[in-house]
Each structure stands twice: as C-alpha cells, then as structure tokens.
C-alpha cells in the first residue's frame, strides 16, 4: 500500500454485503461475517458493538487488508490506515520514541525529522518527555497511549481501533476515552472503534453498529446525536445506554 505524501484528508469506509467464511477440515465452512453493509463518513466516529468473539475484529482486519472477504465489496477512501490493538503490541526492546517511528522507518525520513515526529505525536497523547523510556517502564495505560501515537504517526486518514481500552482499569480507560475524543477532534481522523462495552460506544461515537454473534450480522444501527465534548454521567447518554442494553438483551433472545 502506497502512502500519499500530501493531500486533503479523506477517510471514508464503505462495506457492501461483505461476508467471510473459513473453510474447516471435513468440508464444512464456518461463517464468521454475514452480509455486513455500512458506511463510515470522513471524520466520523463509528463504533462496532458486539459480544466478545463475534467476529468484530475480522471486520477491521478486512478493512486493513490483513484478511480477504469471501464476498462483497470494501471501499476505503484514504490511503493510510492506522491500527490500535487490544494489547499495546509494542516492541519492548525499543524506546518509546523508536516504537512510535517504527512504521515510518521504511520511508526516506531524516533522523532528526523522525525524532521530532515522535515528539510531536507523543505530546499529542500526553507523553511528552517519555521518549527514551522503555515500554516495560510504563503503565498499561501509558503503553496504550504509545500505541495510539504510533498509529497516528503515519498520519492516517482512518484509525482502526480494536477494543483498545478493554485491558485497562476503568479510571484509566475513562481518561483515555476523553483524550481520544480530543485527539479525534484535533486531527479529524475517521475512527472505526470495536468494543463490547455499551457505555463506551455510547460515550464515544456518532454512529453505533450493533453486531450479533456467530455469524456477525448488523443487528441495529443507532445514531448518537449528542454534541462533544461529552460528560460522564450525562443523563442523555444514560438513556441511550439503557435503550441499547434492552436491544442487546433482545438480540440475545433471537439468537
């Protein structure tokens, strides 16, 4: 995949009837995704909400080009895609700054430029002055901040996030969610965020796609028309959350 050197940030994702099945031994096939269609507009924040192990991550892998769909079309407008995983997936033998610039090293960058880029993105995630630390010297939340800085460092049009805060304690996760929204508004990325937490998806997104399990199918689309910045404890968020919880339980009975 070629990275564009300049240009207007366009980052929209469109999926049309995307299905994915794995062929299993004995001629069976396991359906993972079934007829997934949705659109994420440029600079939008979309969450894919579903139970654990339902195939949500597969959607992200298909969009990132790490896996191929069995049928359907995926259109990604915007060349660069940043990825944040559930685990930070940092290289422990590299310093924080070296981790951030890892995806940039293949391009012809000056060493000093790389260094200042690392500093810029670490500042964006609130880790100024931590350039020369090693990942194992940082807390889990700080490691995940480094992972976010690494994804942002390639200046992606689209940011794919696979349950990035589910391994963190709730206080840290709350802080990072607020910062993610700040970064999103500052940088104007298109974010596609996978989660199994109803309250997290409501707090973060403009659009929520509720996905059922095995095979993953879009069960419901919900628009969250609330302005940012949002506050924890806002009654309007709570109402949407309650409604979603009901939907979620209803989905369980159908299955």
């Amino acid at each position, binding site marked *: *995949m070629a990275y564009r050197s300049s240009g207007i940030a366009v980052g929209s994702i469109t999926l049309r009837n995307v299905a994915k099945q794995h062929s299993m031994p004995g001629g069976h096939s396991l359906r993972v995704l079934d007829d997934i269609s949705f659109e994420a507009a440029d600079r939008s924040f979309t969450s894919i909400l579903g139970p654990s192990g339902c195939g949500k991550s597969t959607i992200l892998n298909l969009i*990132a080009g*790490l896996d191929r769909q069995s049928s359907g079309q995926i259109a990604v407008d915007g060349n660069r895609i940043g*990825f944040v*995983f559930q*685990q930070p*997936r940092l*290289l*422990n*033998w*590299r*310093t924080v700054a070296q981790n951030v610039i*890892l*995806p940039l*090293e*293949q391009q012809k960058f000056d060493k000093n430029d790389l260094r200042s880029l690392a500093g810029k993105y670490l500042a964006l995630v609130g880790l100024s002055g931590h350039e020369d630390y*090693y*990942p*194992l*010297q940082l807390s889990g939340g700080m490691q995940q901040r480094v992972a976010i800085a*690494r994804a942002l460092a*390639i200046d992606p049009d689209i940011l794919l996030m696979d349950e990035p805060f589910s391994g963190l304690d709730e206080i840290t996760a709350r802080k990072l969610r607020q910062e993610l929204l700040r970064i999103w508004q500052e940088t104007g990325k298109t974010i596609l965020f996978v989660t199994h937490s109803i309250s997290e998806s409501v707090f973060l997104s403009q659009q929520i796609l509720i996905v059922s399990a095995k095979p993953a199918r879009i069960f419901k689309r919900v628009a969250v028309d609330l302005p940012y910045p949002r506050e924890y404890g806002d009654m309007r968020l709570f109402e949407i959350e309650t409604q979603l919880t009901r939907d979620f339980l209803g989905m369980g009975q159908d299955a």
Partner: protein
Amino acid sequence: MTTLPRILSIVSLLLVWLLLSTIFPPTIVPGPVAVVKAMAENLASGKAFFHLYKTLLRVGFGLILTMILGIATGTLMGLSRKGELFLDSWVMVGLTVPAIVNSIICLLWFGLNDTAAIVAIGSAAFPAVSISIWQGIKGIDTQLVGMGQAFHLDRIAIVRKIIFPQLLPHILASMRYALGICWKICTTVELIGMSSGVGYQLNYWFGLFSMAQVFAWTLLFLLVMFAIEYLLFKPLEKRLTRWRTAVPALQWAQ
C-alpha cells in the same frame, strides 16, 4: 550490589583450593603459589601463547561452525513442521553420541589437523544450539508480527526488527553455553590426536605426572574464559537487554 557476591564467590574458591593444598601433598593438590609460578614460567617461555593460540583458534572456528549449524537447523525446525520431523532425530543423535566419538571419527576422516578439531567441535556442539533456537522460534510473539503487517512493514523489516530481536536472547544464551561445550570437546580432540594446544599440554604433563602443570594449564584457560565472559559476553548481553534490566520491578524480583 552485584560485584560483592561475585568477588566473594571467587575468594571462596581460592580459599577452598588453599585449604585443600595444605591438607594434601603437592603431587595431589598443588597450592596456588606453585601453580601460578608454573603458569608464569610457561608464559615467559612463550610456549603457552602458541598452545593457547592453537586452542582458541580451534574453539573459535568450532564455535562459528556450531552457531551456523545450530541456527540453521533450529530455524528450520522452528519454522516448518516437516523440518522439525526431519531434523528431530538428527538432533537426538547429536545429543546422545558422546563427543569423544565425534572426535575419534573426525580424526580418522580428516587426519590429525585443525579441520578435524573444528568439525568435531561443530558436529558435537550444535544440537544444544538447535534446541535453544527452535524453542526461541516457537516462543515468538506472533501478535507483534501481526502489528508489523498492519503497519505495512515488508518481510525483511519484520524479520530484522520484530523477529530477530526476539531470538537474540536465545542466540546469546546458547552461544555462551556452546562456548563451554566447544572448549571441552576441543581439549578431548587435542588430548587424543593433536600435538599442540592446551589439551595436548594437559596430556603431556599427565604423562609426566606433573600436577602443578596440569593445574597451571587449566588455570590459564580458565582465566582466558573468564576474560571472554566478562569482557565480551557480559557487556554484550547487558547492552542488548537494557530494555529488560531497566525495569525496577524485575530488578526487585531478581
């Protein structure tokens, strides 16, 4: 505080030696003074340097051969199931056959020369490295490889920046271990088939029943090995694993 236990350990070794030398006659356990004197004489005559050079040459090239064979077979076993099945019995044979058998066979095949010593060392010592590398490859974090793919790193970059650094501790550990094995095999080869080297000298002085000289040559080689360990391996390992030792929690656990 890592230097004090080390110093204490060496001092205690010397004390035990001193104590034993006062109990037993010099023909059984010669004292440190007599041994160091014999070693100094060997060095002063220049003879020791020649034999030391020959042994280090054989051990050095033997170690290189060991690492090449070990890393190649270990990588094949780690990456391919077929390779694992194919090489498994080779490694088992290599581990089971006593090193002296390798020595005898190589001396008969190649004659009484350095090639025989190097091949004997390489063929006898590599299985230990194979196993270490094999385990290392099995333990590679594939999630990190997935991360590299997600960020479009090419294959070479993934191997160089993500896979190799994970194997490096295994390579280093197996190299230190292999060095010890190589030296032991080298002495055996020199003892049975060479007319130079530390092993030859040990055999020669064994024939003359000179315990002081046997001790002197052993001590000389020990000193050389200590120097390699503390001037080469330890600093290298420390440099390459800074990221791990920098963690306060891990220091506490040690």
